[in-house]
């Protein structure tokens, strides 16, 4: 909750910056919060936005980065902001007369706040500025301070380069020569006591360190993807020659134990692992995190999965603003569809709302249905299953798929629609269904970030697995959204009869046909299936059409997955 509040405050501060800069793509390095209430400071955040509006942030950020190298980073940043505040104020005032009022308010707040008791150059300069704003004397007596203060009155007509140049000169003149440390600003080194003293100055402009950190994590990621992929390929090469026991142990130690009892598993396999899937297995699990107790290949895989989770989460965080907007869009879209669908046409009834227009029927043709009956109040009587293909071909897109799945899940959750999310992949003859979230769970589906791709994809069997996970059909209608590349592949054979000659490789046309048959079987049971195919991965559209028919959504880029799902879902909802 604390985190959420923090995020909200940050978002509010960002919105102020965007309001005045007009640039909603701008991600500022600085945001300002009140030192007491930690609420966003309206005026100072507006100054940050206006700086973006009037100056070239690339050049200014370079200067801020330069300042970071110095021991007096905070002091210098404060002084630079003070200078910028003065000139963006003058530039904006003609367009936004309220600035004068906001600036006075800021000055008053400053003197009412806790910062006034602090000492130091930054405070002195700030106090002088706010005194002047309130029409008082600036209170500076020391000629050095007066000189510096005058230097901070930047000319609004200056370009960004001129501002930077002026500020470099100013700091050189008033700090470097005064403290006689070094000539270049970049390497100002100050003796410890002075640095300690300077640290005491609490800057009102707090650096937005979060985004910097995330950025570093992300870069680290990119390098790892390559090695992660290699590891998966290595795993694939080891697929032959294992005994059944070893295989099962391996699957359990990699993906976690089954959610069903042994007898239930047997039961399921007796029903599902038949016909073309003879000899294959289904493994239902909630997944596992951490590699404790695992050895060898499994341990390496688990470590890789852990890393992938970190990558998925980091990627989501990095783009959280964009995804948050996606969630909001999708939620609104689904809500609208629900609202317009779930109100049924009134039906003539023997009780309810009297319809004067039909009264005559009661009198003359003895039809006593002269009322409109009301149908039951809205409750979502359908559930959504999201099945994600987690085969190795998804390697490079794992982060995006996890983030998009989270967006869809979160939107469904906010609309109050029960949903399930699971992924499937096939390894050593086991089609593993990893269940991230069940219908009953109401919390945020953060588990979806455990999504990790490996192995083959035996889509036909996965559909049988999905049927199992959907449970009871009698009360609710089901929509299954399946993300796939429509090119099922497995190293275990496909059977179309008994005998060695009736064995075929599970790939190409046969595998497609098998998947299409399974999809058709589900459709016959009343399940709506939506196929999500994305163009980034080469999968013949024709093949996908064979499986999903008209209910096929092409996702042009995985970034747009949530949007496409929204459209398809709304269509399904409105045709119930």
């Amino acid at each position: 909750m604390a985190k959420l509040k923090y995020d909200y405050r940050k978002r509010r501060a960002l919105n102020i910056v965007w309001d005045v800069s007009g640039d909603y793509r701008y991600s500022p390095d600085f945001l300002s919060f009140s030192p007491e209430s930690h609420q966003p400071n309206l005026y100072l955040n507006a100054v940050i936005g206006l700086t973006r509006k009037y100056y070239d942030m690339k050049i200014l950020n370079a200067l801020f980065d330069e300042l970071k190298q110095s021991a007096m980073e905070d002091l210098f940043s404060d002084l630079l902001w003070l200078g910028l505040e003065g000139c963006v104020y003058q530039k904006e005032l003609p367009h936004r007369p309220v600035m004068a009022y906001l600036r006075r308010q800021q000055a008053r707040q400053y003197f009412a706040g806790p910062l006034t008791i602090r000492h130091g150059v930054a405070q002195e300069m700030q106090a002088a500025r706010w005194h002047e704003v309130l029409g008082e004397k600036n209170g500076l007596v020391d000629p050095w301070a007066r000189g510096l203060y005058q230097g901070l009155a930047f000319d609004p007509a200056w370009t960004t380069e001129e501002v930077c140049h002026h500020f470099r000169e100013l700091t050189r003149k008033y700090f470097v020569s005064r403290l006689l440390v070094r000539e270049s600003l970049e390497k100002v080194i100050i003796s410890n006591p002075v640095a300690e003293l300077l640290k005491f100055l609490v800057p009102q402009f707090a650096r937005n360190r979060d985004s910097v950190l995330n950025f570093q994590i992300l870069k680290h990621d990119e390098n790892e993807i390559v090695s992660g992929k290699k590891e998966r390929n290595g795993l694939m090469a080891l697929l032959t020659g294992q005994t059944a026991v070893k295989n099962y142990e391996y699957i359990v130690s990699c993906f976690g134990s089954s959610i069903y009892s042994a007898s239930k598993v047997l039961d399921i396999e007796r029903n599902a692992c038949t016909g073309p899937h003879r000899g294959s297995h289904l493994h239902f699990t909630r997944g596992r995190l951490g590699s404790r107790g695992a050895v060898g290949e499994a341990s390496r895989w688990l470590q890789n999965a852990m890393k992938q989770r970190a990558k998925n989460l980091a990627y989501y965080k990095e783009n959280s603003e964009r995804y948050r907007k996606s969630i909001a869009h999708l939620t609104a879209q689904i809500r609208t569809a629900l609202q317009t669908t779930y109100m049924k046409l009134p039906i003539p009834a023997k009780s309810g709302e009297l319809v004067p227009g039909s009264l005559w029927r009661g009198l003359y043709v003895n039809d006593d249905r002269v009322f409109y009956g009301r149908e039951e109040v809205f409750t979502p009587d359908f559930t959504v299953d999201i099945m994600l293909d987690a085969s190795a071909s998804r390697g490079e897109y794992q982060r995006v798929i996890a983030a998009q799945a989270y967006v869809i899940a979160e939107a469904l959750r906010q609309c109050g629609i029960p949903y399930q999310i699971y992924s499937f992949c096939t390894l050593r003859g086991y089609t593993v269904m990893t269940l991230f979230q069940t219908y009953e769970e109401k919390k945020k589906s953060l588990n979806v970030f455990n999504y990790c791709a490996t192995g083959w994809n035996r889509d036909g069997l996965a559909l049988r697995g999905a049927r199992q996970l959907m449970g009871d059909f009698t009360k609710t209608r089901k929509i299954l959204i399946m993300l796939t590349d429509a090119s099922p592949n497995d190293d275990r054979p496909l059977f179309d009869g008994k005998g060695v000659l009736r064995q075929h490789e599970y790939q190409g046309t046969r595998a497609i046909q098998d998947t299409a048959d399974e999809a058709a079987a589900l459709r016959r049971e009343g399940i709506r299936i939506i196929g999500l195919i994305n163009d980034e991965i080469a999968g013949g559209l024709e093949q996908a059409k064979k499986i999903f028919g008209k209910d096929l959504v092409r996702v042009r880029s995985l970034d747009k997955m949530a949007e496409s799902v929204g459209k398809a879902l709304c269509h399904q909802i409105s045709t119930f």
Partner: protein
Amino acid sequence: MRVPVPHFPYFGREIWENALTALLCGQNLLLVGPKATGKNVLAENLAQVFNRPMWNVSFHINMDASAMLGSDTFKNGEVTFRPGPVYCCAQQGGFGVFDEINMARNEAMAVLHSLLDYRRTIDIPGYSLLKVHPACRFIATMNYGYSGTREVNEALMSRFAVIKMPLIEEAPLARLLRTEFPRIKENALQAFVQIFMDLEKKCSEAEISDKSLDLRGLLDAIHLMENGLEAHRALAMGITNKSFDEYEPALITDIINLHIPGEYEKTDIFEL
């Protein structure tokens, strides 16, 4: 009697030209656009310009044929037909405004097909075949907002000429406010215009929902100010309080505070 006298004039040359040409050529219009783009204002203005009586039908999910065309009623011991708004409009050569046409079920709208296309007739089963008056036109409006809405099906869509209504721009909005409030001071006018523009932008960026992007609300709020209510309180009633989100109102308040100072009274806003 039924010829409307619009409260607001519609500003926008291109839209006027498109709409007038289509209507003169005998076509029906579908006005599509998000909230506060003046769809109904334009419809009223058009009816006034052509001096035609207007029937307004607000569509909703429970809309059915009888609500539009008419229903059976029992009068003087006899079952008779009580004409609905669409029937009257077609008979008397009026302008029928179908408000929020996409909120009705597409199936319910099928009865209108023969009315809207070249046949220009409507058959009331058990009664008569009505030929539509040559001056009769239909203008449908449809809210197509940031969050997406129900679609109108092809069969219905093909019977309309579609005009995409642009979001109101700064200059027309200023003109509108000046017409509505002749005594408003220039500074205050600019501030209100900017507040609305900023809300629009924030909406299109999905930072806030479009509940608070309410031009009617803004006008109502300024009316309250004209009667002496302080600006922030008036705007809270007209705009901010329309959002029931946990966080949105703060974002909207920030926008307002970035344009008008703390105590903004009638004397600051209007010439007395």
